């Protein structure tokens, strides 16, 4: 019955009072906008739909597949909900899922619920919506949908984990320069599992009920605001995280004390050394540029891959 807790549900005790109340305020604000929007857009029959699909997402988190050595890929479902329901209704659905998980199953804390809602119901949904729309604008072909779904699911997990790491860092629970790379790399892997399941689900739905994925559904009918919001959140978090993690604090102090600072300068970021660009004077500016370049590289790679797939399989009508 109970799914194994995904590592993104922050328990109580991890966030400082300031951080948790700030994110409660932000989440309540966004949710009230979502409620107003859905009141106008949703039909009467969409309300039972939200409840039942919330249950489906909760149950869908039980589905897993073994990867290797006891680890398994899971579904979190924010991207799938966004693609099928549209961003506002998906935000409300994910809110119900995350809240019930906290209230009944102690999966994530109650004081930390504001932050968890922000990560999973707001950032997760907005980012997957923005990425999905961005990629679908490139091509309207039916077989392109699973690839766009994969990219949307992966980025939603990845960006949400950055937001989670930043919240922990601001609370002083986990130092930024360790939490952010660690959370980011773990969730870059988890995101692959999420993306593959989402793509598989979209392939299945595309075959069984293609009408749900056709252009005129809730996804394309929604406002530009969410799209811009998703892009802004992605870029802001991608920029903010290296900025926070390059800030020299705790670890280097201890390192200097122990005299192993030289040994610690391992060649981890060879491509963009220390997240800074050579030749740019201001440190903050250089970090932001490095972050932006990272975003552009990721976007470029995903667009490139999808473009290639399109060219190489022009006559493949399966999928």
């Amino acid at each position: 019955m109970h799914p194994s807790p995904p590592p993104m549900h922050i328990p109580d005790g991890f966030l400082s009072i300031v951080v948790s109340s700030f994110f409660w305020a932000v989440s309540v604000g966004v949710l009230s906008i979502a409620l107003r929007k859905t009141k106008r857009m949703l039909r009467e029959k969409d309300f039972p739909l939200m409840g039942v699909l919330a249950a489906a997402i909760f149950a869908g988190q039980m589905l897993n597949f073994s990867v290797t050595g006891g680890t398994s890929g899971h579904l979190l479902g924010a991207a799938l909900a966004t693609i099928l329901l549209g961003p506002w209704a998906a935000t409300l659905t994910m809110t119900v899922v995350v809240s019930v998980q906290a209230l009944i199953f102690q999966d994530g804390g109650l004081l930390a619920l504001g932050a968890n809602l922000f990560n999973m119901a707001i950032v997760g949904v907005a980012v997957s919506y923005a990425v999905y729309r961005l990629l679908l604008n490139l091509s309207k072909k039916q077989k392109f949908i699973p690839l766009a779904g994969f990219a949307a699911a992966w980025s939603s997990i990845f960006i949400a984990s950055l937001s989670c790491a930043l919240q922990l860092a601001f609370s002083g629970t986990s130092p930024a320069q360790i939490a952010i790379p660690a959370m980011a790399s773990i969730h870059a892997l988890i995101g692959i599992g999420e993306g593959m399941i989402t793509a598989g689900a979209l392939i299945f739905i595309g075959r069984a009920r293609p009408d749900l994925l056709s252009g005129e559904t809730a996804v394309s009918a929604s406002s530009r605001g969410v799209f811009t919001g998703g892009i802004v959140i992605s870029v802001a978090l991608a920029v903010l995280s290296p900025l926070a993690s390059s800030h020299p604090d705790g670890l280097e102090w201890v390192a200097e004390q122990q005299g192993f600072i030289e040994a610690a300068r391992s060649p981890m970021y060879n491509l963009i050394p220390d997240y800074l660009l050579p030749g740019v004077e201001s440190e903050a500016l250089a970090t932001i540029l490095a972050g932006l370049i990272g975003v552009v590289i990721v976007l470029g790679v995903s667009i490139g891959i999808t473009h290639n797939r399109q060219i190489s399989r022009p006559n493949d009508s399966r999928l």
Partner: protein
Amino acid sequence: MHQLGAQTKLLLALGYLFTTAAMPEKAWKVYPVLLILIICTAFLARIRLVSLIKRSLLAFPFHLAALPVLFTLPGDPCLILSWSKFSIAVSAPGVNRFLAIGAKMWLCIQAAALLTATTPMRQLLAAVDALRAPKVLTAAAALMWRYLFVISEEAVRLMRARSSRSALLSEGQGGGSIAWRAKVTGGMAGSLFLRSLERSERIYNAMQSRGYDGKIRTLPSTQAEECAPLTLVIGGFLFACLLLLGTLWQ
């Protein structure tokens, strides 16, 4: 404890969580008092401590996220770990914060588990409703709770079907590549979604044929009971005292 109004219990639990989260890190003498509160409540509610503790261990993997704090918080090094060329210092404030985070998390989870163990979901939702949460969300949560078990069983059936069709041969590998396995799981997720979608349409039809007009009505017995102001005041006073004690007595 089981008879206490759901709203009162919810507010008391939130007060407890707030107190625990706001407690200063070094208030080690107050943490046992907080634990005694939990144990007394569990005793009054006749809930077995073992089950409570088992449930509270669930979130401990997350404690790993706080591990780096051991090494990075500046302060007196109290332990130096050496491993061939490398050595790393564990600072005393780091140890303190790491342990405090763990203790807070443990106490908070137990408090939340006590709340759900003593309060049925319907009453809890009615209490959330009475605290002016949006009706759309509580109604969706109630529907979700109603169908969660139905759909979970469907998910379990899907998984059983998958495992009964993918027997592991004694030699060699069972199942295809990771991508294939992911696609199969994706198909399961997709079919779960579609089935739920169709179920929700049937539910809507059934609701309409019973006169659904956009409002969810519940039986009077499941609505929130009277809030007990005296209990709340005593609880709030107790939590305030504990916070004061924690700040002064370090």
